């Protein structure tokens, strides 16, 4: 086994020279094929269907549709509702997860008795599947009769709230945030732990109080990490589906219908693959706008922030 490995250096050629003869294309092929089948093909198919007449209820109506699907989508008030709902959900969840996650990260960066256990517990929600999250919150926490929150409210002498009916969007935001705070916590905590101790000491000797220390040293240090958290989370929040599907089903009315759920509804309730595909293209564009905007904003912020 080891003889060819030994033979290579003994020929006196640098390893790089041998690499040029390696079957680079063939070695890359599995990854490229995988990417192609899982990303490019569905994307192209979606693009194709978005311009086709393709309603499962009317199988005989086929053919090129032009921009009809997009016209129908843009005139559909549900689409606009879902767009606004998506933005509200993403924005609110981002604010909550990042701020609570940062607070918890600062807390867990200190040493206290039982930190290991507490940290594990704090991270646990991340390992719960979205569907299970939805079911747990719906049946065990939010439920107006059997739910934990209802029990607490009754013990405080208050009327239990039917969360999913009265505050549907807030409920979804709470669930999504609950699920994703651990993610923000984990990443921000590793960021905090990579902050050199002597910088904190230097800034203390420079006369900074706790807030100035946080504002001028900790936050700039976390800049990159915050960027990663916001970036990844907004991509995940844009595609929130399971929590909505298992709890409110987009309701009441369109109160919690976000873009993914709108796509799902058009395809599997109205059986209109064309409109669904058009909406999916819309979602792709939205995701790209989001990420470009974020990259610009955060990168710019990093550069100017470092000058301050």
């Amino acid at each position, binding site marked *: 086994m080891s003889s060819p490995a030994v033979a290579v250096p003994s020929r006196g050629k640098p390893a790089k020279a041998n690499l040029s003869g390696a079957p680079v294309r063939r070695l890359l092929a599995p990854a490229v094929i995988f990417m192609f089948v899982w990303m490019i093909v569905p994307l192209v198919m979606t693009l194709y269907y978005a311009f086709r007449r393709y309603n499962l209820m009317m199988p005989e109506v086929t053919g090129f549709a032009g921009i009809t699907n997009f016209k129908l989508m843009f005139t559909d008030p549900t689409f606009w509702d879902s767009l606004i709902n998506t933005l509200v959900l993403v924005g609110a969840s981002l604010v909550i997860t990042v701020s609570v996650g940062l607070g918890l990260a600062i807390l867990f960066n200190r040493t206290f008795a039982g930190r290991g256990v507490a940290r594990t517990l704090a991270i646990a929600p991340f390992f719960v599947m979205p569907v299970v999250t939805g079911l747990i919150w719906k049946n065990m926490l939010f439920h107006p009769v059997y739910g934990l929150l209802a029990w607490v409210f009754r013990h405080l002498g208050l009327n239990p709230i039917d969360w999913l009916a009265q505050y549907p969007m807030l409920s979804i935001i709470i669930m999504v945030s609950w699920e994703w705070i651990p993610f923000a916590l984990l990443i921000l905590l590793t960021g905090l732990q990579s902050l050199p101790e002597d910088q904190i*000491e230097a800034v203390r000797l420079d006369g900074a109080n706790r807030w100035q220390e946080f504002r001028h040293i900790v936050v700039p*240090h976390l800049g990159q990490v915050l960027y990663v958290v916001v970036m990844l989370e907004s991509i995940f929040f844009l595609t929130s589906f399971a929590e909505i599907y298992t709890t409110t089903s987009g309701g009441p009315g369109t109160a919690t219908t976000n873009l993914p759920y709108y796509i799902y509804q058009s395809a599997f309730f109205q059986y209109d693959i064309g409109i669904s595909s058009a909406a999916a293209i819309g979602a792709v564009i939205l995701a790209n706008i989001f990420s470009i905007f974020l990259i610009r904003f955060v990168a710019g912020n990093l550069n100017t922030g470092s000058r301050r």
Partner: protein
Amino acid sequence: MAIVELKDVVKNYGGKGSDAADNAVDSFNLTTKDGEFIVLVGPSGCGKTTTMRMIAGLENISGGTISIDGRDVSQVAPKDRDIAMVFQSYALYPHMSVFENMAFALRLKKLPDAEITARVQEAAKVLDIAHLLERKPRALSGGQRQRVALGRAIVRQPQVFLMDEPLSNLDAKLRVDMRAEIVKLHRKLAVTTFYVTHDQVEAMTMGQRIVVMLNGKIQQIDTPQRLYEWPANIFVAGFIGTPSMNFLRGKVGADKRSVANEHFNLTLTGARGGALAAHAGTEAIVGIRPEHLSYLAPNDPIAENVLSGVVEVVEPLGSVTMIQVQVGPYRVTAQIESHLTVAMGEPIRLRCQTDKLQVFDATSEQSLLQAPAAS
């Protein structure tokens, strides 16, 4: 500009069953002069950095008091002690430009912008980094970062400077340059400075007074010259000076002036002559620095205060030659003139400069000599 006074300062990191024997720093007493350059030196883990961090307030003290200009700061937060520190890793703020790094402490003090700019420019000029003010720390070389770290301390015009091995991350040549530069800077600013290092050359060249520490205890506090001439014990004697002192074990002779065994007989002369009066017959360790041994030609009639042995190692350094000579059971290092040719395996005779000898008690390892009072 301040007088720093450490009184019975103790640091104990606690832990199970820890007592005074576990003290990281044990009853540290030192009063500086105004504007003095104090070097804390010792091997790793001797407590020198801990002592400095206690002065800074980054470590709590377990006992004793630290005062600056008569004001007890033992319980004062680091930010209120008016102390600036230069860290071994420099600890520059990576997201700020050099200017902002230096201006940061002044901004926190809410000084007017004009004054901040003036002070930073002034310090930058002194340190020769005025052309780097817009750069980020990561775009600087090690030596430049070092200067910025110094600048950040200078602009604050603090009462006390603390420097924690600031030169240890620089290459050898730059270290020598910066060494001189820091000394020059200190002379100019005349701020009381504590400087921690494990390098005895740095300590000797920079310190006005040197605190030699071992295992949390002060071994000796003295000027470089007196540390070299009158080390208080074997540790200090071996620590100060390169190559380090040779130690030979013998007995104080009946004449109360000599230390001898079957391999040598060395008689103290000069100021040291009478020092052994009370110690006749005690086991003693005699210390000779390599530079106080000189080559003796084979036909030279001198026979007193001579070590004879066999050359084991010859290390020509250009200006001088270091040789190691086996004298009985002892390996003795000597520094001889480079024009002398000695060959390995040959017998050699070395003459001792007897007015420079050190004599230590073999059990307590303390010096038996009486250092003259400091001038």
